[in-house]
């Protein structure tokens, strides 16, 4: 058979693509349960890390059960529409991010620490330089002060933008306040040595990673602003209790 005839080439390419496609689909389907489990476990690790709990790989599940005691999905006014942890965990932030603000699900994870204090962990999602970045911001029960933060990314530059995952950067957010005089200001990320123009609390950006740092800033601003209703309620509860 003539190997260089058009028919042979087209048939060859077609058969090859079908064979390879089938093989890949089969492998993907058979590995999927394991992969999903890994991805879910990684999400648990990130949530725990926001409240300063770091445990070895194999005890993530137990630690998650111990510390993350409740979860809910709230609406724009901060009213819970679903009060199960599973519902909050199942929300896909990358999809929610595309919806208009009034239709979005707003998951909240509730952490109970060993000293009995309650932390509210809010997921945020945004864009870095090369791809999506996301994070979990843990707030004290005053609905204002940050207790801890954890950031992750898909493909930021190693050594530059990827450093948002490092402890040194994440620790900067601790004890920063989101509200000043009942006004939502978020936490600004500014070049070292500079200050934001408004009164907002701020942290130093990562030098050499301006776009990623800016991405974290706007992700926190737009992400946490959505929870304004919920956070205001926490603040009111807190002042009433005092």
């Amino acid at each position, binding site marked *: 058979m003539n190997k260089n005839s058009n028919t042979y080439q087209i048939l060859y*390419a077609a058969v090859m693509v079908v064979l390879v496609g089938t093989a890949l689909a089969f492998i993907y389907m058979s590995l999927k349960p394991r992969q999903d489990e890994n991805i879910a476990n*990684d999400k648990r690790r990130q949530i725990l890390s926001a409240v300063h709990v770091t445990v070895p790989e194999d005890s993530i599940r137990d630690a998650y059960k111990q510390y993350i005691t409740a979860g809910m999905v709230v609406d724009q006014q901060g009213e819970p529409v679903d009060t199960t942890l599973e519902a909050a965990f199942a929300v896909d932030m990358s999809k929610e991010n595309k919806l208009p603000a009034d239709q979005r699900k707003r998951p909240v994870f509730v952490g109970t620490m060993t000293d009995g204090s309650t932390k509210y962990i809010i997921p945020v999602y945004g864009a870095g330089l090369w791809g999506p970045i996301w994070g979990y911001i843990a707030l004290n029960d005053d609905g204002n002060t940050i207790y801890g933060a954890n950031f992750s990314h898909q493909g930021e530059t190693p*050594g530059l933008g990827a450093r948002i995952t490092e402890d040194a950067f994440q620790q900067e957010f601790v004890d920063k306040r989101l509200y000043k005089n009942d006004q939502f200001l978020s936490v600004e990320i500014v070049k070292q040595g500079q200050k934001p123009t408004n009164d907002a609390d701020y942290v130093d950006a990562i030098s050499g990673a301006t776009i990623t740092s800016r991405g974290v800033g706007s992700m926190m601003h737009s992400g946490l602003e959505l929870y304004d209703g919920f956070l205001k309620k926490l603040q009111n509860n807190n002042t009433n209790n005092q």
Partner: protein
Amino acid sequence: MLSKRNKEALFNPLSKENPVLVQILGICSTLAVTVSLEPAIVMSISVIAVLALSNVIISLIRNTIPTSIRIIVQLVVVAALVIIVQQFLIAFDYDVSKQLSVFIGLIITNCILMGRLEAFALNNSPWPSFLDGIGNGLGYGIILVIVAFFRELLGSGTILGFKVIPQWCYDHGYMDNGLMILPPMALITVACIIWVHRARNTDLQETSN
């Protein structure tokens, strides 16, 4: 099993025909995944696996491939193998797969692969092609591991994540060299290895005229 020619296919790429040191191929990933030792080792194993398997597959079907679409056929085989490696990593070593992220996908564009498929597998039977793949993968992997060893040791003071530089060194003013973690130092480390390698193999040195 190991005739003289097969031995050459397996062992020559380790030194005299090393893809990184002599042919200067696969530099991009050498810069990118050598900040620490663990991803470098996983990357090496992945490249060895993909290179050996794609060499064998291309060699097996070499007589059926129409010449005018052979590059596409090679790409499909390599891409399929790379996706399989990636899926296995996500399923069995999620942390490493996150660290390597895009670089596993970039094995497809690793010049060593297409180079070996074109230069060797298309003209040789499966067994020598397999050895050639292993040899070139190892030649690439050795350099990756050496570079990663020095970058992790000098940049973070650790080897495979374990602290090896004792605390009293830090107490007496020793500091990890942050520059080693940045990509340019990988290039300089590779250059130093090439320097040593050429100094020991005088026949590889270019004459100036």
